[in-house]
């Protein structure tokens, strides 16, 4: 069936709730309102208010209680209304969700999937467009994923709900309704920790994820470039093998993400290539990201988020070096 990402995530939640009665959803405005992006639309009516919980307005509370629920045998799926507000639950994630398994030597674990809309490009207000994947990846213990299409979103969410780990599930706001895809209505998993080779190529490798996948694809298609495009899908843990394989194959690597350039996931990817495939490179690695400053007000976002022209220029530079 043709589905956009909102529909495919809704469908994944529904299937998982049917499959396992311990799956509960909680968050601000997710019940009656169906979520501000309507991702949880219809689920309150289908599963009742014990399983689709409209919470008070408190992100630390949402994530903290989810951790407790998980330790109590449930599989909570907290929704944080926007990634920028997840920082209020950051302490709970870093201090507790990331550590419970390790500090009890697997005696306890926190199976939960924190869903949140992330990244910008849709002229939202301040704090509604952040790309925080590097924060959550930095410490270890949290699985961090970001699908770039409806098919992957559904399969990865189902996979996440079948795992026994805390998963930060970033949903690119811009891609929620950007396009539809044929998505099976049945259960299926898309692996977590595995990158997707979107297209094979020989002249350069473009490693990307999230909102930048369609941007990169557009450039590559329009210009008919023989590029290998890798959609990471999972930020932590990185699919290092896929990264090194493509780096060795083409010898030229461009990394593109929407998050701020400095100290972003691109730095980690570049460092791993430098450590393990340096002598296979024919040119220095190039990173493209947003500028190294907080996401601006919406009037400036087109000057801030990488666009096709910026990606295109980086490709030129790499191909000519």
């Amino acid at each position, binding site marked *: 069936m043709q589905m956009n990402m909102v529909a495919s995530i809704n469908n994944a939640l529904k299937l998982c709730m049917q499959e396992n009665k311990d799956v509960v959803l909680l968050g*601000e405005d997710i019940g009656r*309102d169906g979520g501000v992006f309507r991702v949880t639309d219809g689920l309150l009516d289908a599963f009742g208010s014990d399983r689709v919980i409209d919470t008070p307005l*408190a992100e630390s509370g949402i994530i903290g209680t989810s951790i407790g629920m998980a330790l109590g045998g449930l599989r909570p799926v907290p929704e944080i209304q926007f990634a920028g507000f997840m920082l209020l639950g950051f302490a709970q994630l870093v201090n507790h969700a990331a550590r419970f398994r390790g500090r009890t030597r697997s005696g306890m674990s926190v199976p939960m999937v924190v869903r949140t809309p992330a990244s910008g490009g849709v002229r939202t207000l301040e*704090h509604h467009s952040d790309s925080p994947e590097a924060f959550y990846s930095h410490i270890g213990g949290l699985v961090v994923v970001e699908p770039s299409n409806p098919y992957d979103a559904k399969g990865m969410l189902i996979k996440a709900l079948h795992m026994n780990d805390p998963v930060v599930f970033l949903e690119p706001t811009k891609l929620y309704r950007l396009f539809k895809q044929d998505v099976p209505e049945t259960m299926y998993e898309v692996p977590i920790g595995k990158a997707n080779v979107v297209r094979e190529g020989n002249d350069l490798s473009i490693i990307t994820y999230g909102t930048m996948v369609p941007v990169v694809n557009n450039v590559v298609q329009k210009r008919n470039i023989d590029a290998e495009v890798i959609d990471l899908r999972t930020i932590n843990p990185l699919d290092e093998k896929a990264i090194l394989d493509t780096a060795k194959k083409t010898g030229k690597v461009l990394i593109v993400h929407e998050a701020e350039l400095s100290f972003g996931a691109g730095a980690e990817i570049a460092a791993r290539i430098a450590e393990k495939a340096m002598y296979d490179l024919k040119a220095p690695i190039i990173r493209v990201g947003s*500028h*190294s400053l907080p996401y601006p007000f919406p009037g*400036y976002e087109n*000057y801030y988020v990488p666009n096709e022209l910026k990606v295109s220029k980086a490709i030129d530079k790499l191909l000519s070096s």
Partner: protein
Amino acid sequence: MQKRVFDGSIDYIQIMDEEGNIDSSLMPKDISDELILKMYRNMALARAFDAKALSLQRQGRIVTYAPLLGQEATQIGSGMAMRDSDFFVPNFRQHALYLIKGLPIENMFISLRGFEDGAKAPQGFRGFPVAVPVGSQVPHAVGLAYALKYKKTGSAVVSYVGDGGTSEGDFSEGINFAGVWKVPLVMIIENNQWAISIPRKNQTAAVTLAQKAFAAGLEGLQVDGNDVIAVYKTIRDAINLAAQNEPQVIECVTYRLGLHTTSDDPNKYRSPEETKEWERRDPMVRVRKYLTKKGLWNEETEQKMADEYRELIDTGVAKAEAFKPDPKSMFEHIYSFMPETLKQEEDDAAASNYWQQ
């Protein structure tokens, strides 16, 4: 042994009822009809601004907007109760405060067009920019109040939080600090009954929001937030107490007549009957009734005022629409100095033409 160690109760105050009748036992002597007229005119300005913003948003000329419709009395009453030396620390819905405290209207529309530049206030302006993360402004207000007290300025801080915002940790932490530090703070809880789709009763099991003051050792009071006179009196009294380092919490009971923001559809979660009942309690209607009865207001004065405000607001919009953003400004106000690496990013971006796309 068992004994009562704490007693707390919350009073509710209304001075002007929905029909424009005044409870003279509570009416301060110094509130003149002239002042009430000024309150009415200010509320009308807020409402005219609100309507303009909503219509510009629908035409795609500004970004997402959070309407204040129905909350004029809470905002104007409290804003007018402030002394010139006092500061306000808002959330994201108190547009009326900016209007009456001297932020140029063009600045407001520059912000609403999505440019930081609008938030650069004129020298001496005593208000903070909007705080989008709910509740996050409360500790700022407390810290500001501490600084004002430390510097012996005699100023107080009036801060605003929504009913939903009282559930955030920042709110509880903030007012708790205020109690321990005894700072000149008036914390206004602008209870408009809804936090997007979450009704007040699902936000907390507490009967009132004002009673949250008790846990922080502060005084709490509830006021009819649609009664501009009651709000004015209550906040003025609260400021006087706060200025003597007795921080206050005031819950203004009002109603969000419009949308949460222009991205919201209230039909999903609330009944038209409920909204209708609150339209009856419209904060402006009662004052207009009062002024009309007194022979101080009529169709003609209403029309004259509407024309005056239209021109004022349209001029602000025109100036804001003439504003041209400079992408370099993104880089130049991040630090007090320019890091070499950031300068490289700026120069590289300026030299490429992808900004011109």
